[in-house]
């Protein structure tokens, strides 16, 4: 078992090391305006099951330079999913929209609130909050039903509300991700 673990750790570290190398190499190729080769190297990292917001951003930049704004926007969106706080990614998406002749629709207040909240917590933290609160609701209800401890109903209601709130926010994000993945698949089929 110990040997297996060591092999696994070694494999992962070698994999990430080579991914770092590929990333640096792709950067250098981009500096020399060899954008196509840079994209191929970035894709190679993705094929290795590695991702980072910067990786998606850089692919987006490559396509931006090639003036393929649809693809560029797609990768910037992917990058934004992983790093929702980044202003520069949002700026790039707006630039793509401008080049594609699309106007950003006015955002309804709750969407901007939702985005702000999403950028406040990372996705994983939001997932933990959501799952913890729904579990709390469950436990509180059980305590109440079996007459073990009387919990005021307002607390149960509040926890349930928080749980639902986080759930809907995160599920919208996950949905967005899955749409992007689907788009990715269709693009690769093309």
């Amino acid at each position, binding site marked *: 078992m110990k040997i297996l673990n060591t092999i696994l750790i070694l494999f992962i570290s070698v994999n*990430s090391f080579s*991914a*770092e190398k590929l*990333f640096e190499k792709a*950067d250098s190729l*981009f*500096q*020399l*305006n060899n954008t196509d080769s840079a994209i191929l190297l970035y894709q190679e*990292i*993705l094929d290795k*099951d*590695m*991702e*980072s*917001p*910067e*990786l998606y*951003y*850089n692919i987006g*930049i490559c396509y*931006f*330079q090639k003036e393929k704004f649809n693809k560029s926007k797609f990768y910037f969106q992917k990058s934004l999913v*992983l790093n929702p706080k980044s*202003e*520069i990614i949002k*700026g*790039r998406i707006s*630039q793509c929209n401008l080049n594609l002749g699309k106007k950003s629709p006015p955002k309804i207040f709750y969407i901007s609130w939702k985005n702000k909240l999403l950028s406040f917590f990372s996705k*994983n933290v939001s*997932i933990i909050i*959501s*799952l913890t609160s*729904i*579990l709390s*609701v*469950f436990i509180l*209800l*059980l305590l109440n*039903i079996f007459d073990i401890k009387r919990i005021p109903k307002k607390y149960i209601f509040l926890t349930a509300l928080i749980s639902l709130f986080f*759930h809907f926010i*995160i*599920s919208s994000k*996950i949905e967005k*991700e*899955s749409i992007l*993945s689907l788009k990715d698949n269709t693009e690769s089929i093309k």
Partner: protein
Amino acid sequence: MKNILTYIFCFCCLFSFSQELNTNIYAIDGNSPIECDNSFIKNEKFVLEYNWTEKGNFVAPKFKDLIIIQESGIRKSSTGSSFSSLVIVNGKVVENINNSNKEIIKTKTYVLKPTKTGRIRIPAAELNIDSKNIKSNSINVYICDCDEWEIYEENPYLQTNFKSELYIGEQTQLIAKIKYSPKDNRFKTKDKSQIIINNVYRDPVSHKKNIKRSISKDCIASWTKTIHHEILTPIKVGTVNTSPLEIQSTYFDFNIKKRKQSILKSKEINLQIKELPEPIPKNFYGTVSKKFSIRSEIDRTSLKTSEAISFKVIFRGEGNINMLEPFELEFPSSFEVFDPTITDETYVGNNNTGGTKTFEYTIIPRKKGDFTIPEIKFNYFNPKTEKYIEINTKEHLISVEQGKQYMPTDTTQNSLLNLDLLENSEFSSITRRQFISKWYSFSYWIIFAIIIISYLVYFILSKRSVNPIEIRRRKSTKIAIKRLKNARFCLKNRDFDQFFEEIEKSLWGYFADKFKINSSELSKETIDLYFDKRNIKTETKNNFVSLLNICEFARYSPSKDRNLQMERTLEEAKEIIIEVESDIKKK
């Protein structure tokens, strides 16, 4: 009004002598040198003169087929610029600057004599200045195979020289000369017609000393007067037809032996401009030249971010170099590159334009790292060999360290202008992210479903006990049975005394626990008080008190049917506890 009046008088006389080694050849007429077209007869002495302004060691060329008759030392003559300025404030001279900046011209002269006929090449002389060498042009002289010349004794004529078939961008000189007899001392020209040449870029060549002695191959000496000299650079493909050049002249007509005034006419000037041969290479920017070079210079290779580098691309050669414009160069994308400053040091020579053209780029690296400015490939077309020639600069390695942080006023907007890549932070697994996303929803809905189901089950179960009085009664019975457990035990054992004592104890105990009263305070009055306080029915209260009395009396006045009495009392005690419980819960 206290105005400060500042007058700066500037007088500047500058004879700009090109920083080169100039060569002149003169024929000797008696004792004085005269301009010539580098053609001489056998054994004719001529003067070769070198001029320069730089400090340095002059290295004479190796003369072949020529004898040095006389060699002068280096002569210095001043012909230069002086500068003076006055600064006058409120009418008073506050500063008087006199700066004499005269240029010293150095001259080295040789009197040479040819030892053979035909073409003799005089190689380039050199001027060694520190590590730099300046070379003069090599000169060809033509020595005619004759001991004496004959004087040209015919009417003057106008001749034009130019290359009629040219590639686009290829330069040619258009020169118009009048050949006339040296015997005609009063030869005059005036009113030269203008030449209009379309689709050609024209650079005029000065021809001040325009009268030269010329000796033809058949040893006939004449004067040639240059009346027109320019360099033509075609810029459009096609045929260029121009009307002949005309000039009015007064000359001695050797046919009628009389002075005459007439118009001299040249031949038509027709140019055929050809397209450059295909395929045109990628890095060709229109330069047509027989001799061309490119090099790049960088002022530093190690610096910090946001510091500037001066990167120069220097082109040197002859041909249409003056028409060369900056073209796109490859720089690392994190470099901010400003438009180049163009330094044009080209000149118009006798045969073509030439010189140096420099594009100086100011570059500011914005990111740290090791970068390479790649080699610049440049193609020019050589019309002589009719081939494209590729030349290139060397590449430059630049090491950039992190300097002061570049802080644009609006971070987002400015950073959006440059397509800069981001440095990677940390890689994460795509599969892991997808796994979390997939299982999060699933587990959430499972828990949600369990909650709903539990609530439903609870709801259904609670719906089953419809009568609340019955529930209350059931609960109260449980409490009563618990309290009367010991009494029931005594009933089973037929322990009469103990039984009533236990009933009494149970009732008092129940009362004390229920109403939270200390055992010291227990009395029938407190029963009355607390039962009233909790609004328990009077009937219940009376029953409770009478049962206590029964228990008290029963111990001292035994009945005949003890068992029946005990069973009845137990039942009554149970009922009274249930009643009290029910009454309390009702409230």
